[in-house]
């Protein structure tokens, strides 16, 4: 009941937000929020720390950018292509990575992501250092022109909500129960007869697919797909967003993404522009030292204390 009300309030805020704040900024927040939520599905609910998640964001962005520019597809088809490709890359990378655990899993994902980074840098399809520029937003279903930022915002909001609900459903599904059990105690899950690698792979592919959705959408918003999207900085940033917001909580990554993107945006134009990375580092250290459960995690603790 309380949660339903909260969700309605948040939805209302999201609907009126572009009249108050700059829509492109809000779209950026939504794209990164979706990316962080997808990442959190893997880290917070399946217990797997991927250090190469940028590859899925980047694959989504590049593939959507490429098919939109080259074949002039409608945006929904462009996004679909990006998402399918991310899912396939997720399947292959996941197959290779889930055999390992913990730090080794992280290292394998990082190595595979670097492989992809150099592919995107070298291949003639992606424009090398320049990336793909001037990606057309096109007309949604051939009808609705997305060139206008307000129209685009509501489209991005819809994409975000679909992605977010998918994640919410996954967490609270029969599969989600198994996933959490594996996170909690893998040997026990095995001894109960679960072939855990198959479940981990499934979680990995779902996460990769949704990260790809975030990347595809982001490419349309900025009409740009660049090496930044596949760089390991990006893989690190999503870890930061998730930890800052609160891993393993449903709203944490959203809040974390909003906080980081806001910081970057407001600092970029100010006198501290050259110190963004230093400041983000400080935030990260404070977060790890002082509130390990993240913003949402700490908030939940306070609420729980007061209610009982």
């Amino acid at each position, binding site marked *: 009941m309380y949660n339903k009300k909260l969700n309605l309030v948040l939805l209302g805020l999201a609907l009126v937000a572009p009249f108050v704040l700059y829509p492109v900024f809000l779209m950026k927040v939504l794209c990164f929020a979706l990316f962080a939520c997808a990442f959190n599905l893997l880290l917070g609910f399946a217990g797997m720390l991927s250090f190469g998640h940028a590859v899925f964001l980047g694959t989504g962005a590049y593939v959507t950018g490429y098919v939109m520019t080259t074949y002039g597809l409608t945006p929904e088809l462009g996004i679909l292509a990006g998402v399918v490709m991310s899912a396939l890359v997720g399947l292959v990378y996941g197959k290779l990575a889930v055999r390992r655990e913990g730090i080794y899993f992280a290292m394998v994902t990082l190595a595979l992501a670097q492989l992809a980074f150099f592919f995107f840098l070298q291949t003639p399809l992606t424009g090398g250092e320049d990336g793909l520029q001037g990606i057309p937003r096109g007309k949604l279903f051939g009808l609705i022109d997305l060139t206008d930022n307000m129209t685009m915002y509501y489209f991005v909001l819809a994409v975000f909500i679909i992605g977010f609900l998918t994640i919410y*459903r996954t967490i609270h599904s029969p599969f989600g129960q*198994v996933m959490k059990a594996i996170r909690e105690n893998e040997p026990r899950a095995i001894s109960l007869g679960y072939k855990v690698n198959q479940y981990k792979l499934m979680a990995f592919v779902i996460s990769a697919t949704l990260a790809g959705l975030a990347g595809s959408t982001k490419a349309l918003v900025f009409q740009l797909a660049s090496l930044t999207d596949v760089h390991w900085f990006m893989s690190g940033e999503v870890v930061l967003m998730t930890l800052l917001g609160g891993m393993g909580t449903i709203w944490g990554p959203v809040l974390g993404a909003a906080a980081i993107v806001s910081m970057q945006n407001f600092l970029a134009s100010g006198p501290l522009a050259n110190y963004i990375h230093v400041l983000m580092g400080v935030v990260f250290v404070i977060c790890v030292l002082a509130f390990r459960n993240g913003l949402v995690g700490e908030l939940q603790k306070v609420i729980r204390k007061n209610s009982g």
Partner: protein
Amino acid sequence: MSQDLILETRGLVKEFKGFTAVDDVNLKVERGTIHALIGPNGAGKTTVFNLLTKFLKPTRGKLLFNGQDITRKDSASIAHLGIVRSFQISAVFPHLTVLENVRVALQQKRSDTFTFWRSEKILDGLNDRALELLDSVGLRDFSKAKAVDLPYGRKRSLEIATTLALDPELLLLDEPTQGMGHEDISVVAELIKEVGKDRTILMVEHNLNVVADLSDTITVLQRGAILTKGTYETVSADPQVREAYMGVEEGQPEGTTGNEAAVGTLV
């Protein structure tokens, strides 16, 4: 064959980089019995368990379950066949509720464990059976608590309920009473006795009172090999067993632990 064997190992060997942890073990577990595996620390009891459930791969030898060769199966498949193990350190899913812990095991037999697009509410049909199982170990009143918040003894009870949810033919219990106080031990021992009425149990156990009380057959391991096998009376009378537990210098045991003391008083 005169014996009805549920589990058999033939020439089981496990080597770790030149060290032989399990050396030519021929273990025979008869159906419907409670079989205890005992031995001093480092005798290879847990290694045998890990080999039986394929958490470790045997270097040589064969594993037979109901006459079927299971040497090459993986851990999860072994559970599907009907061998379910517990662990030395209580193996619960700490941040799931007590009910969810049992339900995850019940869920395993369903076809929808990969279903991520439907609500977990479709699992509510399993709740009655889960509560029944919790009832049988005296945990019904705790069904909504997080497993992590249970006291240690109750965690072990929860673990047994979870294991029973799979309705296994053969239960492997790795030190079920380890780290427990007196009252908890008798509760769990009673529970094992109850469960053992219609199943086969193979357990590693240090507490010899529990072993004496529960087991039909005892196999004693020492330095990775079987020292002897028999009922509690025959095994405890064996001078070799006494020596294995007491140390070579009779009457002056080195670093006596509770177990060794127990042997001293019991034997």
